[in-house]
C-alpha cells in the first residue's frame, strides 16, 4: 500500500490529489461511472481500463478515502475526501469502488467488529473485491423492522438459520449478506442478532423480483437450515438491534450524500432546450416549466450547500446523527423532483419501455423516473424518517 505522509494543508492536498489523478486515471474512462462488479448485463461489464483504474484506486485506499489505512482505507479527513471528490468530478473521473459494503457494512464492522473481523472483512470491501447485500426486511417486517422473524438457533459449534428475507437488493449477485436474525422470541428489539452470512452456503437461495421499471436487482432470499460459523456473529448475541441502528445511520448518511442523483447527465436546462425549444432570447420556451426547473435547481443547490456544511460540521465535531433523517428526505425529494421534471420535458418521448423509436437517453430517463419512486421508500421511508426527526430531533411527544 502506498503510504504517503499526510500533506499539510488542504490546498497542498488538492495539488497532490490532482497530480495523482492526472497520472493514474485512464482518460478512456472519462465521464464513466461505477459499475456493479457482478453485473450480468453484457456490454456493461467492466473493461480492462476500468479494472486497471480500480486496482490503482484500491492500492491508494481512495475508494474508501476516510477509512483507516490499516484496513485498506485512505486515512483522509472528511475535508480531504471532499476535495478528492471535487477533483475527480473536475476531470470526469469517478470512484470505481462502491456498494453496500462501502456504504454500510464497512463502517459498522470498523465500529463493532473484533480485530479479526475487521482484518478479514474490511480490506476486501475497501478493494471492491467482495459485494455485500442487506438482509433486513422480511415480508412481515418492513418499517417495523424489529418484528422480524428469521430464526437463528445456537447449535453449539455453529448457528442454524431458517427464514425469509425480501427486497434484498443484489442478493443474487452478492458474495455475502449481513442479516438481522431472531435469537430470542420473547423480546422484540432485544432478541435480534447481527449475522454475516456467506451467500454460497448451502441452503441460501436468492430469487430476483422485477421492479416497475423492468429491472430485477432485488430478491426474495430464503434461508433453509443454513449453517453459519460462530465467528460470523457481529457483536454479542441479542445485541444486533443497536448495531443495526448504527448501520441504518450509515445508510441514511450514504443515501443523503449520493451525488449521482443527477442522472440527467446534460442537465435539465439543456434537456429542456432540446425538447421544448427556446424563445427569442434563448430562454426555455415554456415559462412555467422554466420557472419550475429553476426552482428545482435552486433546491438542489441549497441541498449541496447543506451537505457541504454538514461535512464541515462533522470535521469540527459538531454534528449529531439524527439530522441524517432530515437530509435523507431532502435528498430523496430533490432527486425525485429531478426525475419528474425530466419525463415532463421529454413529453411522449418519455413514454418508451424499450427501443426502437426511443433514444438510449430517453429510455434511461423514463426508467430512472420509475425507479426514483423508491427513493422515499428504501433506507427508511419518508414517513419513518419524519417519525425519527419528530421524536429525536424535535423532541415532540409520543402518542
Amino acid at each position, binding site marked *: 500500500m502506498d503510504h504517503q505522509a499526510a500533506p499539510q494543508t488542504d490546498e497542498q492536498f488538492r495539488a497532490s490529489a490532482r497530480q495523482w489523478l492526472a497520472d493514474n486515471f485512464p482518460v478512456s474512462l472519462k465521464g464513466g461511472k461505477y459499475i456493479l462488479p457482478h453485473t450480468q448485463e453484457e456490454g456493461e461489464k467492466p473493461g480492462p481500463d476500468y479494472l486497471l483504474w480500480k486496482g490503482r484506486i484500491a492500492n491508494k485506499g481512495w475508494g474508501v478515502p476516510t477509512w483507516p489505512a490499516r484496513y485498506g482505507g485512505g486515512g483522509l479527513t472528511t475535508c480531504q475526501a471532499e476535495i478528492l471528490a471535487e477533483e475527480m468530478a473536475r476531470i470526469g473521473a469517478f470512484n470505481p469502488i462502491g456498494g453496500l459494503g462501502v456504504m454500510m457494512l464497512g463502517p459498522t464492522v470498523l465500529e463493532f467488529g473484533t480485530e479479526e473481523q475487521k482484518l478479514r472483512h474490511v480490506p476486501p470491501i475497501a478493494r471492491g473485491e467482495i459485494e455485500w447485500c442487506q438482509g433486513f426486511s422480511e415480508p412481515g417486517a418492513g418499517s417495523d423492522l424489529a418484528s422480524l422473524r428469521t430464526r437463528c438457533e445456537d447449535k453449539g459449534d455453529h448457528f442454524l438459520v431458517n427464514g425469509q428475507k425480501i427486497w434484498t437488493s443484489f442478493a443474487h449477485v452478492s458474495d455475502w449478506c449481513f442479516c438481522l436474525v431472531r435469537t430470542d422470541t420473547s423480546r422484540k428489539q432485544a432478541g435480534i442478532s447481527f449475522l454475516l452470512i456467506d451467500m454460497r452456503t448451502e441452503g441460501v437461495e436468492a430469487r430476483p423480483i422485477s421492479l416497475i421499471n423492468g429491472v430485477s436487482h432485488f430478491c426474495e432470499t430464503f434461508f433453509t437450515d443454513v449453517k453459519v460459523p460462530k465467528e460470523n456473529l457481529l457483536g454479542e448475541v441479542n445485541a444486533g438491534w443497536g448495531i443495526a441502528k448504527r448501520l441504518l445511520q450509515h445508510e441514511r448518511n450514504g443515501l443523503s450524500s449520493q451525488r449521482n442523483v443527477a442522472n440527467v447527465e446534460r442537465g435539465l*436546462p439543456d434537456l429542456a432546450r432540446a425538447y421544448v425549444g427556446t424563445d427569442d432570447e434563448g430562454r426555455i420556451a415554456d415559462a412555467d416549466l422554466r420557472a419550475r426547473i429553476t426552482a428545482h435547481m435552486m433546491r438542489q443547490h441549497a441541498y449541496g*450547500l*447543506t451537505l457541504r456544511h454538514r461535512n464541515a460540521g462533522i*470535521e*469540527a465535531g459538531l454534528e449529531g446523527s439524527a439530522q441524517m433523517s432530515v437530509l435523507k428526505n*431532502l435528498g430523496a425529494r430533490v432527486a425525485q423532483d429531478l426525475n419528474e421534471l425530466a419525463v415532463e420535458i421529454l413529453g411522449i418521448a418519455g413514454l418508451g419501455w424499450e427501443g426502437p423509436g426511443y433514444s438510449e437517453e430517453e429510455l434511461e430517463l423514463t426508467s430512472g423516473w420509475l425507479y426514483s419512486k423508491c427513493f422515499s421508500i428504501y433506507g427508511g421511508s419518508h414517513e419513518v*424518517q419524519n417519525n425519527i426527526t419528530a421524536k429525536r430531533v424535535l423532541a*415532540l411527544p409520543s402518542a
Partner: protein
Amino acid sequence: MIVLSDEQIMLRDMAKSWVADRVPVSALRAVRTTYADHGSDPVLYTEMAEMGWTGILIPEAHGGVDMGLVSLGLIAEELGRNLAASPLLSTAVAAASAIVRGDNEAKKAELLPAIATGSLTAALAIDEGPHHRPDNIAATARVDNDGWVLNGAKRGVAEALSADLLIVAAKTDDGIALFACPADREGVEKTRLARIDSRGAADLRFTNVRLDKAALLGSGQPYVDRVLDALRAAQAAEMLGGTVQAFETTLDYLRTRVQFDHPIGSFQALQHRAADMMGEIELTRSAVYAALTALDADDRDAPILTSLAKAMAGQTFRAMAKEMIQMHGGIGMTDEHDAGLYLKRAHTADVELGNAAFHRERYAQFLNI
C-alpha cells in the same frame, strides 16, 4: 452546520443574550404604539452601537471593527428571532456598504465614523413602484454648476422614518448612481407609512433637492447590485432568525397544547409537517451563510448565492409563519399572539429587496436557464 471562529461565537452569544434580555417580541408591540413615528426604539439602537454592531462592516481606519458580513449575519439572525425593529441593516449594512464600496474618500472620512458610533442612521432608497426593479430607476440627478439636483419619488423605503441620511439611487447622464442626501435637506418630503410589520417605512419625494458635488458615493449597476446584495443577504439572515424562532415557538406549543387527551405534537400529521419544515430551514440556513461567506470573499458566484438565499428565506419564512398560525389554531389568529407578527414580518421581508419570484428569475438569468 456552519463552522464559526471563536470571535464569531462570542459575538453570536452576546447578541443572543442581549436580544433575549432587551428585545422580547413584545418590544415590537411598543413600536406600534410608543415609537410609531420613529419605527423603532432609539435606545436599543444606541445599545447596539455601544456593542460595536454598527461598525461591523466599517474598516478600522474609519472607526469600525471590520468583521464582515458573516458576523453581521449572525447578529441579524438573532435580531430576527424576536422581530427586533431597528435601522441596523439599513445603516450598518446598506449605507455602510454604499460608502465603503464607493470611491468617495471624503464621504468615507465624514460618514463612516458617525455610522460606527451610532450617531447617524440611514435608509437605502431604491424602488419607485410596487415591485423591486433596481434596473429601472426614473429618479434623476442632474449636474448643476458645482453640485447635483435630485428629482424623483421613492416608495416604501425601509427605516426612512428615523433615518438622518438617505442613500438615493438616481440616474445621471452616465447611468445609475447612489447619492448621500441628508434627510432634512430642503426639497425632501417624507410621508410616514403605517405598515403591517410596524416598522418605520416612508414614501419619499425629492423636488429639486440640491446636493454638493461630493454627494455622489459611487456609480454603475454592478456597484448598486453589490450594495443591494449585501443588504439582501443580511436581510435573509434576519428572516432565517424569524423562521427559526417561529418554528421553536410552534414546537413548544405542540408539546404543551392538549386535545383528545394527548399533546397535539403527538399527532403524526403535525409531526411530519414539523419534520419537513426542519428540512426547509436547514436548506435556508446553508444558503444564507453561503451567500454571506461568498460576499465577504467577493466570490464571483456571490450574486447567485445571494438570490438563492433571499428566495429560500422568503419562501421558508412565509411557509413557517403560515404553519405557525395553522398549528396554533384560533389563538394564532389573535392580535395578542405573536404568530401574526411573524406572518406580517415574513411577508414584508419577502417583498422587500426582491421576493422569492424575483430572485428565482435572477438566478435563472445568471445560469442561462
